[in-house]
């Protein structure tokens, strides 16, 4: 163990914390959308601040580590990846926050179809699991795991497509336009979350064997 190892472990703890908080917020936001629980949604919005702070700290810590320890090879790749991953996780956190806001606006969701709600729950669960798995893969620099997560992503795509095919709403009313837009927003965040998860896996592979891949 050299000094740099301890420094990198400290930063990794923060990355892990970011992941955990984001997973919690993501789950709460989905739950709030389904159940209409205002309090849950507010919790998400509040705790997002902490996630943003963590990203800034990670950026700063990595910068100092590079300046002071002049890392090369894998150490350098890992530190750079920590910045990228923190950025991706922070975006996912932002999506959770925006979903929570949507949940508050659409507290009357009786007009949402059961199928839609069920699909949303399923997608939310898969994403939560993917987040947890990609966190582990990054922590352990498990390149094989990172590649395998891509396959799981495919099942997510299937559900996504199903959801998009069907009308989320029971009936069309006058005030539905606003809700329609915001519900679309939710689906879009889930899509984008997929993209960021792919980035995280790519970063893991980069750390592991120095290759840039597109997943």
């Amino acid at each position: 163990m050299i000094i740099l190892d301890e420094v990198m472990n400290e930063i990794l703890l923060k990355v892990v914390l970011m992941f955990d908080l984001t997973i919690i917020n993501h789950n709460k936001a989905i739950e709030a959308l389904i159940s209409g629980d205002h309090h849950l949604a507010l919790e998400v919005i509040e705790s997002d601040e902490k996630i943003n702070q963590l990203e800034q700290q990670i950026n700063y810590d990595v910068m100092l580590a590079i300046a002071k320890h002049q890392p090369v090879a894998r150490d350098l790749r890992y530190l750079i990846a920590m910045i990228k991953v923190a950025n991706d996780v922070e975006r996912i956190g932002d999506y959770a926050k925006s979903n929570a806001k949507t949940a508050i606006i659409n507290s009357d969701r009786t007009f949402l179809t059961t199928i839609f709600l069920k699909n949303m729950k399923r997608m939310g669960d898969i994403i939560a699991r993917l987040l947890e798995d990609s966190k582990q893969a990054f922590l352990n620099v498990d390149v094989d795991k990172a590649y395998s997560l891509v396959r799981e992503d495919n099942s997510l795509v299937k559900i996504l497509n199903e959801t998009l095919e069907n009308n989320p709403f029971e009936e069309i009313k006058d005030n539905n336009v606003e809700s329609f837009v915001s519900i679309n927003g939710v689906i879009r965040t889930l899509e984008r979350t997929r993209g960021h998860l792919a980035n995280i896996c790519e970063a893991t592979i980069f750390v592991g064997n120095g290759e840039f891949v597109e997943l």
Partner: protein
Amino acid sequence: MDNIFDIKNLNLWYGSKHALQGINLRINKQSVVALIGPSGCGKSTFLRCLNRMNDLIVNCHIEGSILFNKVNVNSERYDEINLRKKVGMVFQRPNPFPMSIYENVIYGPKCQGITNKKRLDELVESSLKKAALWEDVKDRLNSSALGLSGGQQQRLCIARAIAMEPDVILMDEPTSALDPIATAKIEKLIIELKANYTIIIVTHSMQQAARISDYTAFFLMGELIEYDKTDIIFANPKNKKTEDYITGRFG
């Protein structure tokens, strides 16, 4: 890309100590090659083989071929003095002669028999300019070289080597005795010199090797572990021992 040095199966013994084991290496023209490795790994010994300075050491036995421009220089029949005219060397501690700056620079050319004053003057000016020292000393060429600062003395030694119009300049930890500013100046100089010379530099600083070299060779206990483009060695080395050394996790 032309090879200026092609080393095949180089082995060296100091008495019974097998200091260099089966080294194979090709060096491209007009590139900067850094030799790195822990103390005693053989990098300086290897460097000295390239201009046959090891011939001076008692009980030193060398086997293998060192092809310089396709001619094997590691043989009794090849004149080592001839070799040193084309392969110059700069040492760790600046070692200017206790003569004037002018006399230092023309020492080598004079040994070769150049006596024409005009030619010597030109040589002095061009060598000192190439070594980024001309502006500092142009008004005091006849003053003693020992009056220069450490960094200037080292640049004088480089000018001295350049005056021989060599193809290759070997440098054995040229900045380890210098302060950071002098070091930075010489590093910049090395990058400029690359356009006209092949430079092979032994350095104990990982960062220096990373900053200035095109290729890096990692030596460990007399063996060449890895030799590749510097970018690859420092971003994604192929050998675990290389990675351990450059990240400081050695031993």
